[in-house]
């Protein structure tokens, strides 16, 4: 090979290896890389700090435990919804599934079924509802929005039909109510259940193939399919997850309220999706974070709690809530500009 290069050096033609253009990643880099989670974390802390200063009651153990107990259903369903949204899907039917399970568990308990059986049956019911919806979405390729919107309507309709509009009481003496009301090691049982669910969700999302494929499907479903993954089954499974989580939330709610009503969980789907999106998961799929979702859900719960503790007029509450969220997110986006993608 003829060599007409101007440099005769045998190894390096220009002095490049001397200095690397890649520097070690600093703390700031890692902050920026996880911009959306850091952003909601800061926001959460600021909100907590604010309410600790403004009200006396906020930073007391009973109040904090109250908050986690109240938000257990939200946390559980939001964790599952993170999977759904990360695939680029959506599940609008969770509020209806919650209502159906709440009424059905009250009704079956009233009919004399033993409580462990009721719980198992309800979770299976949730899984079945999710599988049906997932079938239409994953195998028949109907947009998730349409399928779960139809589901929302049908499932709440069934709850209505079962109860005839009455709310069905659960005997306060039934061991079933333990799930919603009891304490264990100084922590409310619903909070413990939520904790377990969240840990499992975190591991499944970040440390298993399933979680990997969920992210991949949201980013490029065809690429994942071409990699030989059964994307349809994976997609179906996320809806099974979200419906089962909604069923668990319904059980907890019925146990806590001591009653199953078909109007339970009205608007719950929006609340759940809001928590997930606030946490930094993208509605376009491919980017999800369980930690963000937890922070998003807790932020919503803390604001609702704190405003009441601060004796905010109920007429001002929705205005203040919306404004706080918007302004805080905005400040955080300015802080992390460039690190966070709007999509």
């Amino acid at each position, binding site marked *: 090979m003829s060599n007409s290069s101007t440099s005769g050096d045998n190894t390096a033609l220009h002095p490049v290896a001397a200095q690397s253009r890649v520097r070690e990643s600093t703390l700031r880099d890692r902050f920026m890389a996880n911009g959306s989670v850091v952003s909601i974390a800061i926001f959460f802390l600021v909100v907590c700090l604010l309410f600790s200063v403004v009200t006396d009651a906020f930073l007391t153990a009973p109040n904090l435990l109250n908050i986690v107990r109240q938000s257990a259903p939200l946390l559980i369903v939001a964790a599952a919804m993170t999977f759904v949204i990360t695939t680029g899907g959506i599940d609008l039917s969770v509020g209806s599934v919650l209502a159906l399970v709440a009424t059905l568990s009250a009704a079956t308990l009233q009919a004399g079924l033993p409580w462990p059986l009721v719980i198992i049956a309800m979770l299976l019911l949730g899984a079945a509802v999710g599988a049906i919806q997932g079938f239409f979405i994953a195998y028949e390729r109907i947009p998730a929005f349409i399928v779960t919107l139809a589901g929302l309507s049908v499932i709440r309709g069934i709850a209505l039909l079962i109860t005839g509009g009455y709310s069905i009481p659960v005997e306060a003496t039934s061991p079933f109510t333990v799930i919603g009301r009891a304490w264990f090691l100084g922590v409310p049982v619903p909070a413990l259940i939520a904790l377990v669910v969240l840990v499992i969700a975190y*591991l499944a999302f970040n440390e*298993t*193939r399933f979680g990997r494929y969920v992210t991949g499907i949201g980013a*490029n479903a065809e690429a994942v399919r071409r990699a030989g993954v059964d994307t349809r089954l994976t997609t179906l499974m996320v809806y099974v997850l979200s419906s089962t989580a909604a069923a668990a939330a319904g059980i907890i709610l019925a146990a806590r309220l001591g009653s199953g009503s078909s109007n339970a969980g009205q608007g719950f789907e929006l609340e759940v999706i809001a928590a997930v999106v606030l946490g930094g998961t993208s509605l376009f799929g*491919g980017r999800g974070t369980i930690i963000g979702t937890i922070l998003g859900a807790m932020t919503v719960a803390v604001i609702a709690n704190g405003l009441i503790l601060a004796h905010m007029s109920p007429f001002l509450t929705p205005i203040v809530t919306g404004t706080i969220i918007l302004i805080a997110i905005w400040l955080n986006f300015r802080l992390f500009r460039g690190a966070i993608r709007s999509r």
Partner: protein
Amino acid sequence: MDSETYRVRMTGISKRYNTIQTLDNVSLNLKPGEVLGLVGDNGAGKSTLSKVLSGAVIPDSGTIEIDGKVVSFSSPADARSEHVEMVYQDLSLCDTVDVAGNIFLGREPRRRVLGVPFLDKKRMHDEARIMLDRLGIVIADTRLKVENLSGGQRQSIAIGRAASFEPSVLIMDEPTAALAVAEVEAVLDLIRAVSARGVSVILITHRLQDLFLVCDRIQVMYEGRNVAERRIEETSIEDVVNLIVGRKFQARSARRSEDNGARP
């Protein structure tokens, strides 16, 4: 020739998309260890034909035999289980997944913790690093998401993914389009190395000079049809150019580059 000696036999493959007959009764044969160059004009149907073999596209008609056995691929998973791997022209990467995750997509190594199969991320990153080094590509960190990588870096990841898992048929759809000179050499070396191990390779490329470095045979497509087949010894760049274009054509960019430096 006895059909038993073929690794791949595709016969009578046709595929129509709405108004356009993308593939029209196309055949393709491939022996073990053979490197076939598949060429043709833009839109000739090369990518569609290779996607049929990788299971990503289901043809309207036609049969595929692998090692003498008739197969019917209803999804890429089926083709993968027959050890058919493909580098797609559009790369098929998940932008929000990291480099190692993309390479191992669908085949992530796992380790059991308390009986639960978790991803073995350390192994993924270590092995990904080795594969990338073999392709001679510089990527600072296998934990980077692929969305921000350069065109060539992305392409190497797609190549690494297909080549690293013991394929018996390896389809490469314009694998070197975005690669710089040293990386192209590495890919050509890779093709030589795997074909020496008995892997059958289909190489689709518009860099015609590369064909003569690695291919045993060349097949030309034109508007969705087979039009010619040549053993590499019997042909020349000019011949191939004419076949691709469909008429005599003077392509200076594909000619011998003796006149380097001379401006037109």
